[in-house]
C-alpha cells in the first residue's frame, strides 16, 4: 500500500518548509507540534544573523501559509505516541492535548487574558515573565489562538470554580469540557524535525548561572532584546535598576563537554554583541572566544563589522574562565593568550551555550524505532552521501534534530528531505 | 561608440585655425571641407530661415546650403538634443553625421543617449565656447537688432553678459562639454580659434582632415577659467535670489500663481522625452464632483488645478538630468523664471547624488543604478531626528 500522506514532527522552520513544499503538490501533510504555536526556536529571536533581518517578519508569511493551506493539517499541543508499520504504510497514533479554545471560533481578540486570575512562569520568555493560565506564548504567536494550561487553570485542576475567560469571550470559543484526543493517522513517510535544546547552564557552576542574578543565557538575552519580549526590548537586569554598562559574552560554553562545536554560537554571540551595542551605545561589550567558527561567505564580514563597532574580542580558553559576583557586580577571571590570569568586571554576563539534542529525542527515537548517534542527536545514516535517512526507511530527518546547524542548513535539509520523499512516494 | 574612450580623455593640444571673415564662416568652411572629403555624410547645424527672423536645424548634405548656416546662432529656438533625438531615436543611421551644438545641447544629448532617445554611434559631436544665447522673445521682436548685439560678442571680442538669457548669465559649463571636437574661440591672441580634439574619435577626424594639433591650450584655458569664475559668482548670487521663491509651499504657490498650465516648458525640454506626459494623462483629470468638493473644502479652487503638482512632479522626473539650457524660460508666456528655478533645484538634487548630467556617457543615471551606500547625509538626518536607528 503506498500512502502518500506525510507526517512531519515539529513545526519549526524545517518542519514548516517541508510541509509547504509537500502541500503544494496536493499531498496531505500532518504537521504535529508539541507546543501551542508554530515557528520553533527561530521566532524567539529579534533578528537573524548575519543579514540582521527581523526574524518574525521573515517567517511570519510562511507561518501564515501553513495556517491557510488546505493540505496541511496542523496539530498543535500534540505529540506522537505510537508508530507502527513501514515505509508507504505507517500507522501513527497522535496524542492531541486539549487546547480548550476553538481554533475555528477564536479570532484572537485577547479579551480572555485579563480576567484570568492565575499567573505562571512563561517558558517561551525563558521564565523572565509570566503568563496567565489562558495564554499565547508571546504577542504575534501563530496560530493566534490561546491555549489553557490544565494544571494551573482553577476550573480544570478542580481547585475552584472559575469561568472568567468563558464569560469574557464574545464568540463562545472557549470550551472547558474539551478533552485530550487520540488520533490515528496513516502516512507513507515521516519527517522528524523536532529541533534542538540548549545545554543546562546549571551544569557549569563556574559561570554562576542561578547563583548571580545577572548571569543570563543567550536565549534569555534574546528575549530581553526582543521587541515583543518581556521587557519590550529594554535591557533591564534582574538585579539593579540601571542598564548594564559592561557586558561579557562567554562563548563555547559546553563545547568540550558535548564534544562538538555547535557551529552557530559564534555567530549568535556576535549578533548579541551587535544588538547590545545598538541598544546601549555607551556600554562596553566583551566577547570571550577561543576558535571563531564562521564558515561560509557571509559570516566573517559580520565578525569584522561587529569589531568595527567597538566590541572587544578577548581570546581565552573557556575551560579557564570563572565568574564571581558581589554587591558591586560580576567579575570574570580568565587566562589570556599569554596564559596570564586576568580579571574583568561586568554588570551582565551572557553564556553562549552549546546546542544539544531536543529533550524528547531519546523517547522519540524509541517510539520511531530509529537510532541516536553518539552525541545524542538522531542518527543520520546517509551522512556520507549528504542524505537525511535514519536507520528506518521512510523516516527522515531535517533541521537541528539531526545536528547543530544554522537556518540556511535547516532549510536546505528540509528541502532535501522533500526531494527524497517525492522520489520515494512517486 | 566613443563612450569608453571619452571617459578618461583629457585634451592636451589643439589646432590653430585662422579666422577668415567671421568665426561662424570659419567653422562652416571646416565643415564644408569635411563634407567634401567625405569625412561626414551630413552636418546638423543651425541655419537662418529664409525670412531672416529665426533659425532652424538643418541636416545639410549639399554644401550650398551652408550659405545661411550659423554654427553659433544668436538664439536657441529648438534644443539641439531634440533635433538629434528626432534623427537617431529609432537607432543609429549608416551615415556619419556631424552635429554642432552648444555645450548644454551636447550634455542634453548625452543624457538622452542614456535613455535610448539618442543613439550616438556614427554621430560626431562638435561644440564651442558658448557666449550664451539671446532671449527668444527679445530676438524675434527685433531680429536685426538681435543680430547686431550678438555679432558684437565676437567683433569686439567681448562677451556681453547683459543681453543674454538669465540662465546663460550664470552658466559655468559653457566650455568643453563631452564632445568629440571643440572650437575654442576664447583666449587666442591673433585672429585665430582653436580646434581641440576631445576624444579619440575627434583626433581621428583631425588626422583624416590632415590638420595637425600641436598648439598649447594654456592661454585658452586661462580665459575660460576667468569667465568661469565670473559665472560661478553670478550663479551663487542668482541661486540666493531664487531660493526664497521656492522654499515652502506658500512661496511656491506665489511663484507659480501666474503659471497658466500651458506645459510649454515641458514640451521644449530635451529631457522631457515621454510620449505622453504623466500630467497630461487620465490621472490628472477628475470628476466634476471632485473639483466641487475641493472648492468646498478650501473655499475656492483655482483653474487650471494642480499647477504645483505639475511643476514639482516635472522637477522630480527630470531634475537629475537638467542641463540648465533655459529652453523652458524662453517659451514661458507668463515670464516665470522657470529655468533659473529648475536650475537651482537641479543643482541640489544632482549634488545629493554626486551626479552631473552629460559628464560621462558611460555613467548611469542615478535612478537606473543601485548603490548600497549613498545619501549618507540623509541617513544621518533621519537618524538624528528619530533619536535611534
Amino acid at each position: 500500500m503506498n500512502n502518500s500522506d506525510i507526517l512531519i514532527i515539529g513545526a519549526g522552520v524545517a518542519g514548516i518548509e517541508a510541509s509547504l513544499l509537500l502541500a503544494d503538490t496536493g499531498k496531505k501533510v500532518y504537521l504535529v507540534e508539541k507546543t501551542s504555536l508554530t515557528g520553533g526556536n527561530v521566532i524567539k529571536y529579534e533578528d537573524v544573523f548575519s543579514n540582521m533581518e527581523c526574524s518574525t517578519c521573515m517567517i511570519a508569511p510562511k507561518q501564515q501559509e501553513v495556517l491557510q493551506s488546505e493540505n496541511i493539517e496542523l496539530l498543535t499541543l500534540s505529540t506522537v505516541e505510537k508508530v507502527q508499520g513501514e515505509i508507504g504504510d505507517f500507522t501513527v497514533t497522535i496524542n492531541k492535548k486539549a487546547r480548550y479554545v476553538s481554533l475555528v471560533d477564536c479570532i484572537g481578540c485577547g479579551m480572555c487574558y485579563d480576567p484570568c486570575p492565575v499567573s505562571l512562569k512563561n517558558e517561551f520568555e525563558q521564565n523572565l515573565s509570566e503568563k496567565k493560565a489562558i495564554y499565547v506564548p508571546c504577542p504575534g504567536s501563530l496560530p493566534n489562538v490561546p491555549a489553557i494550561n490544565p494544571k494551573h487553570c482553577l476550573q480544570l485542576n478542580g481547585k475552584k470554580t472559575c469561568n472568567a475567560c468563558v464569560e469574557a469571550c464574545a464568540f463562545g470559543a472557549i470550551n472547558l469540557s474539551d478533552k485530550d484526543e487520540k488520533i490515528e493517522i496513516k502516512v507513507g513517510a515521516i519527517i522528524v524535525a523536532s529541533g534542538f535544546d540548549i545545554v543546562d547552564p546549571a551544569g557549569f557552576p563556574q559561570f554562576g548561572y542561578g547563583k548571580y542574578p545577572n548571569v543570563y543565557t543567550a536565549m534569555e538575552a534574546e528575549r530581553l532584546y526582543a521587541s515583543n519580549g518581556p521587557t519590550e526590548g529594554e535591557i533591564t537586569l534582574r538585579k539593579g535598576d540601571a542598564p548594564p554598562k559592561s557586558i561579557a559574552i562567554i562563548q563555547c560554553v559546553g563545547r568540550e563537554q558535548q564534544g562538538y562545536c555547535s557551529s552557530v554560537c559564534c555567530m549568535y554571540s556576535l549578533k548579541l554583541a551587535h544588538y547590545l551595542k545598538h541598544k546601549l551605545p555607551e556600554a562596553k561589550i566583551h566577547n570571550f572566544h577561543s576558535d571563531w567558527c564562521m564558515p561560509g561567505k557571509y559570516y566573517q564580514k559580520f565578525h569584522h563589522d561587529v569589531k568595527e563597532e567597538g566590541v572587544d574580542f578577548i581570546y581565552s580558553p573557556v575551560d579557564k574562565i570563572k565568574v564571581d559576583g558581589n554587591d558591586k557586580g560580576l567579575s570574570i577571571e580568565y587566562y589570556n593568550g599569554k596564559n596570564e590570569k586576568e580579571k574583568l568586571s561586568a554588570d551582565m554576563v551572557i553564556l553562549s551555550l552549546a546546542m544539544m539534542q531536543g529533550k524528547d529525542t531519546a523517547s522519540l527515537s524509541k517510539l520511531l524505532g530509529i537510532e541516536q548517534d553518539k552525541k545524542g542527536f538522531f542518527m543520520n545514516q546517509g551522512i556520507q552521501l549528504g542524505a537525511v535517512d535514519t536507520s528506518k526507511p521512510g523516516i527522515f530527518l531535517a533541521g537541528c534534530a539531526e545536528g547543530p546547524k544554522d537556518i540556511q542548513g535547516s532549510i536546505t535539509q528540509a528541502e532535501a528531505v522533500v526531494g527524497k520523499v517525492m522520489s520515494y512516494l512517486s | 561608440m566613443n563612450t569608453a574612450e571619452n571617459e578618461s580623455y583629457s585634451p592636451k593640444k589643439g589646432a590653430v585655425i585662422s579666422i577668415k571673415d567671421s568665426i561662424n564662416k570659419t567653422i562652416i568652411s571646416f565643415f564644408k571641407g569635411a563634407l567634401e572629403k567625405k569625412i561626414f555624410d551630413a552636418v546638423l547645424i543651425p541655419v537662418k530661415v529664409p525670412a531672416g527672423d529665426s533659425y532652424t536645424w538643418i541636416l545639410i548634405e549639399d554644401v550650398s546650403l551652408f550659405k545661411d548656416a550659423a554654427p553659433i546662432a544668436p538664439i536657441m529656438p529648438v534644443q539641439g538634443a531634440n533635433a538629434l533625438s528626432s534623427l537617431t531615436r529609432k537607432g543609429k543611421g549608416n551615415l556619419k553625421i556631424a552635429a554642432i551644438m552648444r555645450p548644454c545641447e551636447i550634455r542634453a544629448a548625452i543624457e538622452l543617449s542614456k535613455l535610448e532617445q539618442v543613439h550616438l554611434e556614427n554621430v560626431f559631436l562638435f561644440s564651442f565656447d558658448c557666449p550664451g544665447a539671446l532671449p527668444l522673445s527679445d530676438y524675434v521682436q527685433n531680429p536685426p537688432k538681435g543680430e547686431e548685439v550678438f555679432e558684437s560678442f565676437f567683433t569686439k571680442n567681448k562677451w556681453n553678459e547683459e543681453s543674454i538669457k538669465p540662465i546663460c548669465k550664470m552658466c559655468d559649463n559653457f566650455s568643453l562639454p563631452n564632445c568629440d571636437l571643440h572650437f575654442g574661440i576664447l583666449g587666442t591672441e591673433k585672429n585665430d580659434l582653436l580646434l581641440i580634439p576631445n576624444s579619440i574619435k575627434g583626433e581621428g577626424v583631425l588626422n583624416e582632415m590632415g590638420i595637425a594639433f600641436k598648439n598649447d591650450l594654456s592661454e585658452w584655458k586661462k580665459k575660460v577659467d576667468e569667465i568661469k569664475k565670473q559665472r560661478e559668482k553670478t550663479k551663487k548670487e542668482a541661486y540666493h535670489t531664487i531660493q526664497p521663491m521656492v522654499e515652502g509651499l506658500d512661496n511656491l504657490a506665489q511663484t507659480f500663481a501666474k503659471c497658466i498650465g500651458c506645459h510649454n516648458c515641458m514640451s521644449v525640454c530635451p529631457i522631457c522625452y515621454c510620449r505622453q506626459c504623466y500630467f497630461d494623462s487620465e490621472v490628472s483629470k477628475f470628476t466634476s464632483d471632485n473639483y466641487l468638493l475641493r472648492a468646498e473644502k478650501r473655499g475656492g479652487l483655482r483653474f487650471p488645478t494642480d499647477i504645483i503638482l505639475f511643476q514639482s512632479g516635472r522637477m522630480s522626473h527630470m531634475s537629475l538630468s537638467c542641463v540648465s539650457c533655459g529652453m523652458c524660460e524662453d517659451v514661458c508666456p507668463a515670464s516665470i523664471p522657470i529655468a533659473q528655478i529648475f536650475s537651482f533645484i537641479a543643482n541640489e538634487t544632482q549634488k545629493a547624488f554626486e551626479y552631473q548630467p552629460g559628464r560621462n556617457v558611460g555613467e548611469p543615471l542615478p535612478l537606473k543604478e543601485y548603490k548600497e551606500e549613498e545619501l549618507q547625509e540623509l541617513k544621518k538626518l533621519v537618524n538624528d531626528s528619530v533619536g535611534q536607528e
Partner: protein
Amino acid sequence: MSDKIGVYVCECGPNIADKVDIKKILAEISALNEPPEKIIIAKKHKLLCSKEGQDFLADEITKNELTHLVIAACSPRDHDITFMNVCKRTDLNPYLYKLVNIREHCAWIIPDKDEATEKAIQYIRAGISRVTYQAPLTEKELDSIPDVLVIGAGIAGIEASLSLAGENRKVYLVEKTSSIGGKVTKFEKILPHQGTDLDIIQEKIQAVQENENIEIFTETEVEKAIGFFGNFEITLKNIHNDEQKNEFKVGAIVVATGFNLFNPGKIPRYGYGKMEDIYTSMEIEESNFKTGKILLKSGNPPKSAALIHCVGREEKGYCSRVCCNYMFKIAQYLKEKIPTIKITEFYQDLCLPNKADQKFFVDTKNKGVDFIRFKDIAVKQKEKEKFIEYTKIDGKKEKISAEMIILAPAIEPADGSKGMAELLNISLDETGFFQEAHQKLNPVATSIDGVFIVGSAQNPKNIPDSMMDAQAVAGKILTQLIPGEKLIPEVIISEISEAFCTGCQTCLSVCSYGAIYFDEDKNISIVNEAICRGCGNCVASCPSGAAHSKHFTSLQIYQEVLEAIR
C-alpha cells in the same frame, strides 16, 4: 451597465461592533445609493470569516448579482484570501473585491467612538471608490517542461541529475571538461570521518552514466539560455567546435559549476611558486591519487611537514569552511604513509561545524600531529632549508623547519562565474559566489525563478553538504515542476502600455527578475507575464506612467485616496 456594489460590515463580535457605530455606517453608506448607475447594498454580519459568514456572502453575491464587493472588517493579512476564495465560489471575479480594514485601523486604535466611526466611513467610501476602478483579472496557465539542465558534472551536478531524472523527466548534464566527477575524483579518501573512500563516488558516476534519462555532454558549454521557469530554450556548444550545437527546452536550470582554489602565489610570504616543495592541498591530493605516495620533488618522502590553514582567508574576507577538516585528513594520510614524519599544523581558528569534526580533530592530534594557533606566519628559506616563522597567540615569535609545506588556500568561485551569471541573468554576491534568493530561507534558489544554484558554486562546502544542496534542488523542482501540470504565474503583475512607452529602458534596468525585455523592432519594453512578480519597481520608475500595475493603477490609488481625504 450599472454597478451593483455589495458593502458588508463585519461586527467581529465586540471588536468592531462595540467600537464603531455600525448602524450609522450602514445609513451613510446606503445613502451613497444612486440608481440606476450605482446601486449600493449595505448590510452587517456578526462574523464574516466564519463558515456561516462566508456562506452568507456567497449567497448575497449571487442573489443580488453583485458586480463589486466591499468588505469592511479586519486586516487583509488575516482574511484577504478567505474572501477572495468566497468570490471564486461565485461568478464575481476575485479582483473586483476590496477588504477595508476598520478593525486594526479604526476600532482597535481610536478610543472615541464617533471619531472611529467617521474614519471607518471614510475608509469604506474610499474602498467603494477604488473598487469601481478595479478590473477583473484572471489566472493564466502555462505549459511547463519538466526536464532540467544541470550545468557542471561535479558531485553536486551528478547528485542533482540522479535525484531528478525519471521516466517523465529528462536531465541534460553539461560538463566543460572531458570527464565527469569533478574535483572529488582526485581524492584518495573523502570525509566524513568514517574514512569513506571513493567507491561511493564511483558508484554515483557510473549510475549517472547508465541512467537512460540523463544525457551527458562533455567538453560542452552553455551558449544560450533564454526563457523563464517552465520554459527555457537552451543552446549548447562544443568547446572545440563552434559549429557543433545542441538545442532543446527545459523547465529549470541547476548551476553546479563548483570552485577553484585561490592562488597562494598572490601572497608572497607563503613562498608558493618561489620555493620548492610548497604545495597546495589539491596538488597533494592529485599526486597522492595518481601515485599513492606523498613525496618531495627529490623523490624522497618528507621527514617533516608544515600544514598551513587559512591561506588567503583575510584577503578574501571569508572562511572556506572545509579546509580545517581536509587538512586533518591530509595529516592523517601523511602519518599513515610516513609513520615517522613530524607534522605541524598551523591555524588561525579551527572551523569544525559538523557534529563529528571535533572528534576528528582530537583523533588527528592523538596521532601525533602538533597544532599551533598563529597570529602571523611566513615561509622563509635559508640555503636549502625552509622555515615557518610564526607568531603565536601569546605573542612569542618562533620558527620551525619543514621539508614539505602544504597550504590550504581559500576556496573561490569557479572561473567563468561572471559570464555564467550574465548568461542566466542571475547575480553574484560581493564574494563572487552565486547569490541565493534569500540568505536564510532560500539558499538553493536565485532571484530568477527556475534557476537554481548548488554546491560550492553557491558557498564553499563539503561533499555531503553539496549533495544535500542537490537533493534540496530536487525537492524544489519535484514539487514545483510536475510533469503534466501547468504553472500559474502571478496575477497582479505589471504591464507596459505600447502606445506610451518611449523605449527608454529605465524599467528594464530596475527590474530584479529579468521580467522585462526590449523589443528592438517596436522600440518598446515589454513585460514577460510568466516571470513578473508584480513588485512595482518598473511602475515607480516610469515617468510617463506607461508601466502600470494591473491591480494598483494610479487611477485606482488616486480615487481611493481622494475619497479617503475628502
